[in-house]
């Protein structure tokens, strides 16, 4: 896979993921054949150099696939597997690269105590709302302190690990993972000072959000074209046509937000994209439902799998209020002198 392939991957992702969007959105369904197919395509390992056992390709390829997942509202753990695989590859854990599904915990939503003990690490506490944990064959415990990002691999199922299922608004598994004096060899842990790697999960989520926004705008645009009221298509009403046009402008901005972060994926830049995308996601979801009327809130119609993601994803892993505050704190700390450099970075 190469960067020039991003456009091709975009259409391929629609081809592959489109038919999977109709899967029942039940959290306990086995990942089954669809996930096997995604794995056979090598998508969880896209962007990881072939020398490290990955599928090759660059960040544009990975983001094209993540965007495809969002655009098709497919309930599969592709984003989570991609960022976990990147972390696994960085840690040189080839054995885990072949595992059916590896996921990561959210560091900000974890209350964990990690201690070293005689060549081992002991972990106790709970990692809340861990995506897809119930389906995972291993979980990477993310530990972040001021200076470093650390991953601790833990095979599942495990006697010292209990999983309490939960779901997000869109029906995707978000499970509380409790570690009860888990003991793993110290060699199961690795550090990555690599900021972009630590922020990859959020960047992929940004791309998926952009995909979901794209699909929401397209669906709404089609609906107001086809739906007739007052003897003509809805879009003949100027206010409706303008609302759709505004969604289009917001979609353009959405793509730029992802691009700005992808070109320079330091943690602060990715966080900025996440914050900005959340703003567009909220506005687009509201407009889409307004224009769809009652049809948009029915279970049978395809809007809610998209808008539920637009509501759920921006608040996962870090609350928007915290993300905005952190960005503002960084911006204030950088002062006037640092402001412009951060804008163009």
């Amino acid at each position, binding site marked *: 896979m190469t960067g020039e392939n991003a456009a091709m991957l975009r259409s391929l992702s629609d081809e592959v993921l489109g038919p999977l969007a109709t899967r029942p959105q039940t959290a306990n369904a086995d990942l089954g054949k669809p996930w096997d197919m995604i794995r056979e395509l090598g998508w969880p390992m896209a962007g990881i150099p072939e020398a490290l056992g990955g599928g090759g390709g660059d960040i544009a390829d990975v983001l094209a696939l993540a965007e495809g997942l969002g655009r098709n509202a497919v309930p599969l753990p592709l984003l989570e597997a991609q960022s976990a695989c990147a972390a696994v590859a960085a840690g040189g854990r080839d054995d885990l690269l072949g595992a059916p599904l590896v996921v990561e915990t959210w560091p900000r939503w974890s209350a964990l105590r990690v201690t070293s003990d005689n060549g081992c690490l002991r972990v106790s506490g709970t990692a809340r709302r861990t995506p897809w944990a119930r389906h995972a064959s291993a979980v990477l415990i993310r530990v972040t302190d001021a200076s470093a990002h650390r991953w601790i691999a833990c095979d599942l199922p495990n006697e010292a690990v209990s999983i309490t299922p939960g779901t997000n608004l869109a029906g995707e598994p978000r499970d509380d993972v409790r570690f009860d004096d888990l003991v793993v060899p110290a060699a199961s842990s690795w550090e990555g000072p690599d900021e972009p790697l630590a922020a990859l999960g959020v960047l992929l989520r940004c791309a998926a959000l952009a995909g979901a926004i794209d699909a929401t705008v397209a669906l709404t*645009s089609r609906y107001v074209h086809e739906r007739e009221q007052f003897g003509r298509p809805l879009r003949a009403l100027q206010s409706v*046509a303008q609302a*759709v046009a505004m969604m289009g402008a917001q979609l*353009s901005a959405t793509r*730029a937000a992802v691009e*700005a972060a992808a070109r320079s994926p330091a943690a602060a830049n990715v966080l900025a*994209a996440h914050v900005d995308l959340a703003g567009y996601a909220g506005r687009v979801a509201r407009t889409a439902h307004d224009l769809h009327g009652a049809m948009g809130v029915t279970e049978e119609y395809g809007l809610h799998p998209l808008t539920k993601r637009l509501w759920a994803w921006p608040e996962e892993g870090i609350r928007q209020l915290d993300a905005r505050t952190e960005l503002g704190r960084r*911006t204030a700390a950088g002062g006037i002198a640092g402001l412009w450099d*951060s804008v163009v970075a």
Partner: protein
Amino acid sequence: MTAASPIPAPPVEPAPRDAVDLGQLRRDVQEFLTSARANGAFAPAVDCWLRGFDLGFSRELAARGWLGVTWPRRYGGRNWPNAARFVITEELLRFGAPITAHWMGDRQIGPSMLRHGSDQLKDEFLPRIAASEVTFCICMSEPDAGSDLASLTTRADPVPGGWLVNGAKVWTSHAQHASHGYLLARTSREDRRHQGLTEFIIDMTWPGITVTPIADMSGARHFNEVTFQDLFIPDGRVLGTAGAGWRQVTEQLSFERGGPERVLTAYPLLEHLVAAADGRPDLHAELGTAFARLRTLRRMAMALTDALDHGEAPVQQAAALKIVGTEFEQHVVDLAARVLDIEADPSDGGLAGLLASAITASPGFTIRGGATAVLLSILAKEPA
């Protein structure tokens, strides 16, 4: 300033451009502006591209070779990519430097002449725009032709050797300073009102032109009414093709929409917000949100520039940037007014005065270059 009709894609030639070290160029511009600001050559202003008329300053930029940089060398340019103009322009804007004098010529009249102008026009004007020897005002809007530009009634009737113009233009910024003007007038009555319009280049000193100032709500006098009474324009001053003015002007406006000036107009005020937020955690969330939006919008503007350099004409994205970018600019002004611990005061020479000028300038952000409501109507007619 544009009637609601689909946006034509202007032809863009992906001419091979000379390589330029953009990082070095940025540092050069920053160094010049930092020192000019320190020397008191300018005080950072909001809306500096419309309200900062300083011919001397524009000539300083010209002397450094920073105007008309994308134009061919034979016309006083440097054959640099659009990305180079982007770097220069965004630095000038974020410093709040006085750039109005060269703005219209550098941004739209020069490029329009390059696309449509006769060799004679190009030879006569482009080098002088790049040197900031001539300055342009834009005579488009009329009392009864604002957003609905095609309904303009200023007439240019054919006479031996040229055209005779009668009519009135309004909201013409800096007509009192400009050496030259761009004029859009009706040259024939056709079945379709978008036909029969023609673009002209006029000397503002020609007999038959009267400029009357119109103060805006801040008391500033950039607006003017410009009336034409039997103004004679020689044939050689037709820009492009007589009768094809509508197509040409909508192309010009499509370029006008998508620059960094749709994002950075209020940047000097944002700097004050950043300074104020130090030690004010209650402001951090809103500041962070604004910062995140600014990064996106700046990327959007840069992507448009890159598209131009790749021979694309992304007119819809330009309109999108105009809509969301100017919304952001107004938000910065509103945010500053709400959270800075100071009241807007037009008589003040410091921050209170800057805030006052920003508030009174801000309605213009979403109007000029196509009002948001009109732009949305245009976008609504485009295929999705």
